[in-house]
């Protein structure tokens, strides 16, 4: 590393927070020169490549490319310090890793500590640490908190409009060759239908199994909307829906759902 004057980039989508960090750094690290301010991850990466700052202060939560994704692309070109607003999972994830991070609103004492650590590395002329492995861990932690929830809305074309249909208003789903037909209750409670491209099999994995059960190779039904079931011949049955005239088939392999009903 050069012994020239250290330079820095500050990336945050909120302008006031960029100027706040600029102001605080002026006190904590007077000789540091802020050479770039970025509004999102993409700009941060572009300006780092163009201006080669010594240190990058990256807000974690930015539109488009997040701070973590930007850090991955910056790699070892600069020392990275993450800035994150308080949120338990993010702070917890950072505390686990050996990454430098600040919590918003930035505390002057914490900033002084971080500055001292980065300066030590510069004085020892250490290259920026390889943070790839750390970033992997961090992303794994950040993703873990986003455990998959059952689907609550389904995007579907209704007429010309792309609508969000609440899953609890769906009566049944029926797959055609390329599409899945969604039969639901429209705004006025009347029966309505919509087509989506997602396959029934993919949908079934995301739907709440407590309400949606498969009754046929190509039919999944909302059990709350079933009016009654009649037995057919040869181990089959027919489902009658509340407020709908069409009947749905139950094939032999799914009949066990309706035993003892």
């Amino acid at each position: 590393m050069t012994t020239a004057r250290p330079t820095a980039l500050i990336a945050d989508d909120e302008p006031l927070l960029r100027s706040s960090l600029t102001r605080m750094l002026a006190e904590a690290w007077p000789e540091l020169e802020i050479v770039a301010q970025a509004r999102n991850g993409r700009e941060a990466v572009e300006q780092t490549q163009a201006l080669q700052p010594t240190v990058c202060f990256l807000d974690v939560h930015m539109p488009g490319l997040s701070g973590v994704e930007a850090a991955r692309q910056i790699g070892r070109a600069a020392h990275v310090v993450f800035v994150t607003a308080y949120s338990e999972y993010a702070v917890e994830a950072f505390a686990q890793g050996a990454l430098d991070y600040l919590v918003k609103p930035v505390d002057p004492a914490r900033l002084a500590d971080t500055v001292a650590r980065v300066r030590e590395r510069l004085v020892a002329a250490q290259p920026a640490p390889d943070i790839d492995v750390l970033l992997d861990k961090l992303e794994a932690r950040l993703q873990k908190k986003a455990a998959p929830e059952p689907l609550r809305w389904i995007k579907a074309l209704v007429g010309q409009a792309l609508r969000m249909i609440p899953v609890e208003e769906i009566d049944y789903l029926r797959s055609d060759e390329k599409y899945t037909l969604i039969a639901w209750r429209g705004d006025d409670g009347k029966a309505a239908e919509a087509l989506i491209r997602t396959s029934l099999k993919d949908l079934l994995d995301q739907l709440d199994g407590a309400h949606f059960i498969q009754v046929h190779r190509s039919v999944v039904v909302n059990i709350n909307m079933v009016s009654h079931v009649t037995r057919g011949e040869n181990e089959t049955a027919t489902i009658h829906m509340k407020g709908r005239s069409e009947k749905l088939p139950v094939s032999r392999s799914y009949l066990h759902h309706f035993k003892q009903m």
Partner: protein
Amino acid sequence: MKFTWPTWWITIWARLFLIGFLQLTAFGLLERWPRRLPRWVARWVLQVAAVAIVVPFAAALAYSLTTLGDPSPWYQSKEKLAGCGSMIGAGLLFSPWIAMSALYRHISGQAQRQALSFELERSEFARDALDSRLRLLQAQVEPHFLFNTLANVRELVDAGSAQASQVLNSLIAYLRAAVPSLNDTSSTLGQELDLVRAYLEIMHMRMPDRLQFKIQVEDAALRIKCPPMTLLTLVENAVRHGIDPSEVGGQIDVSVRLQQGRCLALVSDTGVGLGQDHQGKQASQGLGTGLANLRERLQLIFAGDAQLSLTALSPHGFSAELNFPAEAS
């Protein structure tokens, strides 16, 4: 004494009435007394037994009283003795059953009263549960939002900006409404729109280059009742899933109008919208938890008389329309 039919009937009825009355007295007495019974004695058994035991004494007393004027005592006349015997027999045969059925009626009446009071208690519990459920469903203040906003306010203060106190006022207004209070009464659309404006002003201060907004509302709609945090949830959703993920940001339009006794509130944004359908990937992560909670709240409050429809806008963006009964406060 000359024997005639009418007097004979009267005498019979008088005797029967007296016996019945004494039985009833015994029955009623044992219902209240003794106050405490040993555990192995059932009160109803005592009552039925007493009703039976009283019969011979009551019959004897009835005959004594109804033959007061007679020259010889009644138990020396064969006829009267036989009559008394048959009265005792009939009394022993029928009265315990009558007493039992009376007891049964009484007990089932008690059970009904108990069931009613349980029902009342249950419905009170259910209402309490509903209230707390409603409170839980109200949007909570996100720490992320709060600390980010405070960081902005601190910078305004440090920079000596005149904007600082204005933004603080917005934050106070937002927190006052968003911190769940124990007495969340129904607010009016006017109050709800003040809250929405406070929130949007805060967000505009935080992202002046990425968020513009416009609020249009008919004056008549301001006094309409509106469940707290409904419009705010839609607006927060538009910021979080439309504007915030977008590098260029966009505009949020809030409009409220009245139409045929209904209130139509529309929140639309020109943000990233629903995005591309990935294969098998439906709604983006987290999108809709707030909206799904809102739908559940509307269901609890309006019982199906409110609709929330969500539509994608082209080229990109999202619109949420809320339609609920307009009721003046």
